[in-house]
């Protein structure tokens, strides 16, 4: 997997290179919009991570010029704007997703995986990890052959974790994906829902699958 990172901040680029590198991506980077557009047009990338505030040519401009030629390469925007404004601007410009700065690396990674999966359009019939199986079509979860009863939101939560197995998902990302929710209170609400899910999926079994990663979120591994 080859990524292009267009971002002008030196340190951010270094950290992103490190993070993506450790997650098996090959990374090219550009420090301004003009070079970024050239690179995106001249080479084949699996995905472009594009900052909005760029010298030379801003991210929206790069995106629209890229989209004029190439409709396929997925683009994730790094923006300082929040959701409200993004919806008006970003979706019409043709970005696949966006991450609001300051962002958690795990969230960016989760979004990249989601976009790449969507592009490949491979939806596995059954999501499986170890002895846990989730069948989205029949709304069924089994572990070691035992059927587990879940509420619809618990089911969505488990499905999200399984689709991103091995990836740490932040509370905000989980709240947004499962409940379509963004709010400004404390985020222990997600923690409570994870605990309820664990009570059904993990507690009766010796091998725990859902893990809390302090300061980052939750992961199935």
């Amino acid at each position, binding site marked *: 997997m080859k990524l292009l990172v267009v971002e002008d901040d030196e340190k951010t680029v270094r950290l992103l290179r490190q993070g993506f590198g450790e997650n098996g991506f090959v990374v090219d980077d550009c420090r301004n919009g003009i070079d970024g557009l050239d690179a995106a047009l001249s080479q084949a990338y699996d995905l472009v991570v594009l900052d909005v505030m760029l010298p030379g040519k801003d991210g929206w401009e790069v995106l629209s010029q890229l989209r004029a030629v190439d409709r396929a390469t997925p683009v994730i925007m790094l923006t300082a704007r929040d959701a*409200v*404004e993004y*919806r008006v601007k970003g979706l019409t410009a043709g970005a696949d997703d966006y991450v609001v700065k*300051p962002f958690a690396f795990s969230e960016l990674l989760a979004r990249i995986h989601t976009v790449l999966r969507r592009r490949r359009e491979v939806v596995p019939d059954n999501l499986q990890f170890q002895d846990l199986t989730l069948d989205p079509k029949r709304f069924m979860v089994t572990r070691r052959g035992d059927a587990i009863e879940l509420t619809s939101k618990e089911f969505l939560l488990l499905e999200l974790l399984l689709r991103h197995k091995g990836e740490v998902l932040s509370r905000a990302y989980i709240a947004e994906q499962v409940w*379509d929710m963004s709010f*400004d209170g*404390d985020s222990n609400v997600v923690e*409570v829902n994870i605990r309820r899910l664990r009570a059904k999926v993990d507690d009766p079994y010796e091998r725990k699958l859902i893990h809390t990663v302090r*300061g980052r979120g939750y992961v199935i591994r």
Partner: protein
Amino acid sequence: MSFVERFRNSLAGRLTLWFVGPAILFILLMSVGLYVAVLQTLAWRDNQVLTKRAMTVRTLVLAANVDVDYLDHEVSEDLEGPRQLFIRIAGPPRIGTHETPGMPDRSFLSPGGAAVAAAEPRYGVAVVGERRFRTLELTVPLSAAGGGGEVLIQAAIDTSLDGTELALYEELLIGVALAALCACAVAGWYIVRYQLKPLDRLVAEVGRIDYSTLDHRVTAEGLPTELQQYANRFNQMLGRLQTAYQALQRYADDVAHELRTPLNRIQLEAELALREPRPAEAYREALESTLEECQHLSAIVQSLLFLARAENGQARLALEPMNVAERLETIRSFFDGSAADAGISLRLTCDPGLTIDADPTLFQRAISNIVSNSLAHTPRGGAVSVEAHREATDIVVTVADTGEGIAPEHQPHVFDRFFRSDRARTTDKDRVGLGLAITKKILDLHQGSISLESNVGAGAKFSLHFPATHIAKG
């Protein structure tokens, strides 16, 4: 800027111009009027004299026995004086022709000669060489008993000297007009300057006000009424400015404080971790704690950014028809777990058919913030009830809890940024205090409103009014 431009742009200059302009016009009109009146008076007086003499002659020639010698005497009576009078009497042979020596040419007076016959006097003006005359002509028919025929009476008055007199008069008028003009301009300029003095004082006073002296007020006493009004309005504006500036300062202080606490924790954590070699587990611990603080910081920044954008009018709504019951059910399902954990019953009552045009994400965010707040302030065993109904054209969502309530003195500040009653501060250290402010802002964006009813010890009830119809935005 040239002097002329400066003059034209200055209030005093303009007032002077507007003051002097009409004055000049009036003086000019008056002078012209006077001049014309003098001309008219002169002509009228001359005509009176001419008429009187012509009538006397007419009486003489119409007498039964015309005394021809007396006619000679009559025409030569006014040989002296600057305004000499000339008379000509031309009749049939028995009367003969009599005229004052120096009488201008007859044909000149009446080009048609005797052919022009009229019983009424005809007035006119004649110029002969250097001399000017005012003239009168009268034809008198004689009775058949007296022998028939007619007599032509002509009279002329020498007005050559009028020109000199009028020229003198003209000079006098022009002189007076010019003098009046200068006097007007100078007096106008000084009067206006003097009357505008309070304005200069006002400008100086206003100029002394800056951020450090926002509590200073302009003195309205002693100013003219119009400027007093201005000064009062200006003082009111200063008051608003002062309030806003203080709010801004307090806000900046709050932001600094809110950011300083997590920043300080990060700094301490990192610094202590690096002070001496530690086991890997200790570093992990420090980094994890740091990350938590960063997330907290990031949440504050995002919330502040949202508020700032909403206030600048940059935030735009993505309105769409939305089922209220479905959205509220999602919120209930989100908080269900934590409510149950906290021993609070979370209830939802909503007509399933209720719909509204709203921004779904923001609608959810607004309600979630309130529900989250209510859950945090409700003790174990209590209840939080969410209810929605239609009220006239509004959709009203109420969130009521059985918590400790909000003290009356805190109620007006509940929607302020970073407002936390002390109790909330101690019960939940992670709470930022921006949730209710954001909810209020979301209601503002929807052109709705939010209200609070609460009694200490008897819970709190928030009512959110979303108007069903919106004025289109952007």
